């Protein structure tokens, strides 16, 4: 084996030597290809595995934690919620439509392979500013790709988030989350147990697409990346829909022992992982693999990442029934091997052995690294924010308008109206609120879902930023009336071989772990995406948290929009001098610096307890988390999100010695705005007092203007924000489309 070949396969000399030691011999080219993908960062988690062990994964309701295709939690009534989030960043940059579409396809398979019918999708997206035509092309293409796949297969895309920042110019992020529902007693896993059981291939035919996709996802980008377009697969949602229905029918008939999606590293990863989990071996005959192209080599068949394929292990003697069901759904199927008890993945082509390696050598024996980690030299400078250099705004109306039209805060209707967010008729709270809520037919319950991360907080302080992502996700669920159950994470970072990136990663994982412990939310699945770096420039650390919560009574679902004239507006939580890392500082003062808002996890937990109690007692008409843009933006969003057109608000904020911009636009954590019937105000104040959560009455839902006054510490009051709701509504709802149409105002 030449050095060049080893390097081309993304393996180091040491790694190659380790493989030779494991096998006791040199590798052939096919085997080199298999190790190349399985030992890639993408498949092996070699730089992250040690640190991910810090995440809490246990709770009484967890049925399946990390390590399977998706996490599973008990939701009562004999049902389980199955969910996971994954990245498809690199393919989406190279080919936005297909990259995003196949990201959706992949995560859907992770869910239905567990025996669950997918009921909802979310997407977390990051792009560079829309004043660049390239970014507009990427953004539009990704949204169209998600729509094209999700709409066709009939799974509603009910939310997500989009942020715009220069740092994503050459490395956009496309993270896709999927939630499914399964019967608790019928969860399937990727296990190849029972020597002699037949191994079946079902789904689309294998072609030469996507070979070495996993290796591509484990490397940084450069000028030549566009030439990698052929490594991006093409999605076929129609085939996936048939595959989905066929799989669910197979599972209902009790024909299967184990099942796994052929995702990254295709046939190689699915077969060796299934054998390795069960402690068995698998023998494959490649000649039986359905193919789309002639004269493919074993290397190509094993590494192809053609989409819409699954590997099954059936009960012995039942393969005929499996083939019949596949035929009904017009899905290709073939017996391509059998389970053995020798622990080897043995691959034959027309009876001739072309690869023979211990299954566990590909999986469990992959190296793990504790790479050097060190804070970057610029970190101190980044965290320094001399407030005296930030003038207080004289025209707060202009600041509010600038924030509402900043693409990151602007209404995302242009995005989610392209997604079918209602199919399956479960969407009780639609996209655009703190969390989407889906009823569970046949029960009184509902599930709430959200995805969150503020990556600016994360670059300023990876620990606090990541912990805040967990806190915000939980807060969003609580605002919808749901009790957080568990989370999945998608950790997007730069090149782990750089000490500053490893430092960010380790701190972020610690932040997530501590927030999970404090809020008692286990991590049940996840994904790490390293090498998000182009021409040496890394993205901000972006650990996205996807979280699922349960409502015992679907009628209790709460949305963010004000409901009725005369309702009292309450703020739970406390406003401090938190301007570091805010959208205000970034969009208005062009500064990305400071320390992110302080997060006190005990206060956060108390706040969430109080709001949940209030919701469960039926006291809350609307609830909205204060996030990017602070109180002023949150109030505007509640005003403009009222169901039948905007409802104004008259609000007075006490200054408490704070700067005007901190009060209006600061992003202090652990704050929720409620609107309640005036008669229920005191009940909420009592609940808050019992748990030591500050509660103040800000004002009332009234009229057709948003009016925010500040009362100074001597008792004088001045009106700082006063705009008609109609004007704000037009700006907020129109900003994203305007930025896309003209590129104007698109500078993030």
């Amino acid at each position, binding site marked *: 084996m030449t050095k060049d070949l080893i390097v081309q396969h993304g393996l180091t000399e040491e790694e190659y030597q380790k493989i030779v030691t494991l096998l006791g011999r040199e590798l052939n080219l096919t085997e080199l290809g298999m190790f190349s993908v399985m030992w890639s960062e993408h498949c092996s988690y070699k730089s992250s595995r040690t640190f991910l062990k810090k995440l809490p994964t246990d709770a009484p309701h967890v049925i399946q934690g990390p390590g399977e295709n998706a996490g599973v939690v008990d939701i009562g009534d004999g049902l389980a919620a199955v969910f996971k989030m994954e990245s498809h960043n690199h393919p989406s940059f190279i080919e936005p439509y297909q990259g995003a579409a196949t990201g959706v396809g992949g995560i859907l398979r992770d869910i239905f392979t567990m025996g669950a019918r997918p009921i909802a999708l979310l997407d977390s997206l990051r792009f560079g500013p829309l004043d660049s035509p390239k970014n507009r092309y990427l953004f539009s293409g990704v949204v*169209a790709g998600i*729509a*094209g796949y999700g*709409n*066709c*297969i*009939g799974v509603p895309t009910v939310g997500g988030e989009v942020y715009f920042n220069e740092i994503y110019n050459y490395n956009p992020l496309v993270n896709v989350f999927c939630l499914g529902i399964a019967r608790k007693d019928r969860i399937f896993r990727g296990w190849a147990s029972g020597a002699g059981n037949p191994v079946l291939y079902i789904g689309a035919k294998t072609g030469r697409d996507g070979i070495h996709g996993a290796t591509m996802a484990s490397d940084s980008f450069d000028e030549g990346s566009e030439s990698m377009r052929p490594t991006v697969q093409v999605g*076929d*949602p*129609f*085939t996936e*829909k*048939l595959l989905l229905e066929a799989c669910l029918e197979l599972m209902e008939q009790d024909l299967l022992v184990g099942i796994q999606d052929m995702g990254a590293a295709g046939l190689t990863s699915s077969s060796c992982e299934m054998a390795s989990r069960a402690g068995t071996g698998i023998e494959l005959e490649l000649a039986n693999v359905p193919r789309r192209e002639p004269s493919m080599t074993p290397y190509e068949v094993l590494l192809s990442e053609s989409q819409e394929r699954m590997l099954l292990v059936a009960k012995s003697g039942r393969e005929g029934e499996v083939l019949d069901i596949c035929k009904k*759904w*017009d899905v290709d199927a073939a017996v391509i091997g059998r389970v053995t008890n020798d622990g080897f993945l043995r691959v034959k082509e027309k009876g001739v052995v072309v690869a023979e390696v211990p299954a566990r050598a590909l999986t469990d024996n992959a190296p793990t690294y504790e790479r050097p980690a060190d804070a970057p030299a610029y970190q101190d400078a980044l965290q320094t924010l001399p407030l005296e250099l930030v003038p207080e705004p004289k025209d707060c109306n202009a600041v509010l308008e600038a924030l509402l039209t900043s693409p990151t805060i602007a209404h995302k*209707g242009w995005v*989610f*109206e*392209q*997604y*079918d*967010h*209602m*199919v*399956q*008729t479960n*969407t*009780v709270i639609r996209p655009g609120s703190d969390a989407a809520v889906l*009823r569970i*037919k046949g029960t009184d319950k509902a599930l709430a879902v959200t995805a969150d991360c503020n990556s600016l907080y994360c670059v300023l302080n990876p620990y606090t930023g990541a912990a805040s992502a967990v806190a915000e996700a939980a807060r969003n669920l609580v605002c919808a009336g749901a009790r957080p159950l568990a989370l999945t994470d998608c950790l997007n970072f730069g090149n782990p071989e750089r000490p500053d990136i490893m430092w960010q990663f380790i701190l972020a994982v610690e932040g997530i772990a501590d927030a999970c412990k404090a809020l008692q939310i286990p991590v049940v699945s996840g994904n790490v995406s390293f090498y998000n770096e182009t021409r040496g420039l890394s993205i901000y650390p972006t650990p996205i948290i996807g979280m699922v919560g349960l409502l015992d009574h*679907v*009628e209790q679902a709460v949305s963010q929009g004000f409901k009725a004239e005369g309702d009292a507006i309450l703020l739970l939580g406390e406003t401090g001098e938190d301007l570091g890392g805010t959208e205000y500082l970034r969009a208005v003062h062009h500064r990305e610096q400071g320390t992110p808002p302080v997060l006190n996890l005990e206060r956060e937990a108390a706040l969430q307890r109080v709001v949940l109690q209030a919701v469960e007692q039926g006291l809350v008409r609307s609830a909205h988390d204060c996030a990017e843009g602070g109180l002023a933006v949150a109030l505007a969003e509640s005003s403009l999100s009222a*169901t039948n057109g905007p409802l104004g608000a008259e609000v007075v904020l006490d200054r408490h010695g704070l700067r005007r911009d901190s009060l209006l636009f600061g992003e202090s954590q652990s704050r929720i705005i409620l609107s309640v019937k005036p008669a229920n105000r005191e009940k909420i104040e009592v609940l808050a007092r019992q748990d030591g959560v500050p509660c103040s009455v800000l004002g009332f839902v009234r009229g057709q203007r948003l009016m925010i006054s500040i009362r100074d510490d001597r008792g004088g009051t001045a009106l700082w924000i006063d705009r008609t709701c109609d004007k704000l509504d037009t700006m907020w709802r129109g900003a994203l489309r305007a930025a896309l149409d003209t590129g104007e105002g698109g500078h993030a």
Partner: protein
Amino acid sequence: MSISLRVGILVFPGSNCDRDCQHAVSQVMGAKADFIWHKESMLPHVDAVIIPGGFSYGDYLRTGAIARFSPVMAAVTRFAEAGGLVLGICNGFQILLEAGLLPGAMLRNRSLSFLCKDVHLRVENADTPFTRRCKPGQVLTLPIAHGEGNYYADQATLAKLKARNQVIFRYCTKDGEVTPEANPNGSLDNIAGIVNDAGNILGLMPHPERCADALLGNEDGRLILLSLLEAIKSGRYAPKPVLAHNVS
């Protein structure tokens, strides 16, 4: 609603609103709803047929263009010719157009993008088996979710549709005005739904099954489903026995 009413819901490969329609008809409206697989060449005993939304055969060639060749569509055609009630929703409407059971064709949305949102519809003709519970001119709110809902017909066909009151729903403002701004997809004359000449086949782009349940915040879709079930009950739309002879 009497349990004896039976609605058949077609399932093509790629249908994805089949289960939603079943839920709305059975759980919400209380009638029986059975799936009919697209490979069936005869319909079981049903009182009406719903062709649900989705992406039959992936809609890769043209929406509904492949589904019309499924064996079940010949049976549906015979059922309709005998006077049976057929409701095509979204992709179901597109299939009915491709099958020639309704006049006209569907183009891509004016925006060239898929669009999912609530729209307002004006009931243009309340004297049909699908709208008998509505008032003439009543404004309904229903969701749309499609990429190709831009209805088109030639001038002669349009004139005939209008003359015979076959335009059943038009996109309108919340106050019932039919304006270009209220038209979400560029559809000719703001048309959202039409019936055939005999009045027993309705195709519409919006989704009544998505707003039949109070829990989802809007029950306007019930009016259409309720109209259909009451029309069946009236006995006026029972398919004539000629059906049996046509089966060859």
